[in-house]
């Protein structure tokens, strides 16, 4: 059973090795001299100013938090969807209650404007 997963491990190793080998090959073959102007961050012709790791919009956090809730919901839905034939009406009603609660939350965040990007 678990042996089915062994090829995935080999696959991960090979694709990781491919990336590393290509990167090393590129670094070995690519030539060029370093100078401060070349390695400074791209800034459209300006001298770089301010700290790069600057403040950013709080809505990105909001998206991440909402994502966690909904992704968990999907994780719950997956096994339910596969076994829906077996769990029948009881399973359907149970999931409808769960989904209903989340939809109430979804409507709330929608009305609160958490999904607005203006």
């Amino acid at each position, binding site marked *: 059973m678990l042996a089915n997963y062994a090829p*995935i491990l080999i696959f991960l190793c090979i694709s990781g090795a491919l990336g590393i080998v290509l990167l090393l090959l590129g670094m070995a073959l690519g030539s060029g001299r370093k100078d401060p102007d070349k390695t400074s961050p791209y800034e459209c012709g300006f001298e770089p100013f301010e700290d790069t790791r600057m403040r950013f919009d709080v809505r*990105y956090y909001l998206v991440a938090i909402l994502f966690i809730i909904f992704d968990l919901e999907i994780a719950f839905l997956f096994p339910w969807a596969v076994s829906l034939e077996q769990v029948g009406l009881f399973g359907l009603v149970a999931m409808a209650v769960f989904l209903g609660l989340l939809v109430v939350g979804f409507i709330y965040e929608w009305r609160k404007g958490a999904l607005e990007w203006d």
Partner: protein
Amino acid sequence: MTAILVQLDRLLDFFGLPDLIHYTLFNGIKIIIVLLPLIITVAYFTYAERKIIGFMQNRLGPNRVGWGGLLQPFADVIKMLLKEVLIPSNSNRFLFLLAPVLSLTTALAAWAVVPFDNEFVIADIDAGLLYILAVTSLGVYGVILAGWASNSKYAFLGAMRSAAQIIAYEIAMGFALVGVLMASGSLNLGNIVEAQAGTSVLNWFVWPLFPLFLVYFISGVAETNRAPFDVAEGESEIVAGFHVEYSGIAFGLFFLGEYANMILITALTTLFFFGGWLSPFSEVSALEGSFLSEPSFAWLALKMSFFMFCFLWFRATFPRYRYDQIMRLGWKVFIPITIVWIVVEGIMVVAKVGPWSV
């Protein structure tokens, strides 16, 4: 294909290697049989992109290297290998170099569970779909690490945008897949395709699940940061987004990963909604016995090519979405549609009125 693998197994037996090495070598060769054509497909996909968009814009596209430009992708690879890999000052060196490797690895690793016909698949696992969802979600780390480690404002902004967009569309994508699972009753990709086998094309999941197919494919376009959802690149405002500081092959790895992801989306769309390797003419009596009515890898490749063409077609046709429009489409249109469809489908499955026969 199977015959070749049996021969290979015998050949390895002949050398009398220990079991572990024999197993690793056998699977390693299988993996290379998948990876090599995949990378060549990526190379020629970039060529097709430039050529097709060229023709759509009344240009010729690349036509200098080789016959009609056919060697262009190889010239590009050699050029990228010979360019300097520049590491910007004040960047985090390790993370900066880790990001492209990570995004390539995750993009390729998802192919481990994709079945190519009813026999050939590298890892035939029962949780195939779950694995794909998990591995493709990891791709977002490559983007965030690249943006963070670059020490550039443009890269940082591009990474934030890109990450928020990818996770927003991942939800819609996951919900669409729940619909596929309810119809097929299995997480194994091979079984999902087999569940669509039957009398005619009408057995394919695309018909009962048409809204989910649209949501899935459009989310796939958004997930891979392709036009018209490519604000993460936004060359007219943030120059190239998260990979602005990357040069040479480090950029090439991102490129390879992005295109491998696009091809993966087309493969998954075909497997989930269009019957994978099944033939659309399986029950047409005039074609009985000919190769046209047999399920084969050729059908999978043909269907995938169509969706790959769609990717390029979208890029040549649609103007770029604004960021607020992208987020509105993901959260306010796709998620409600999929939730409603899951409820409707759930009732149909329990009441046994669905067109799928389980």
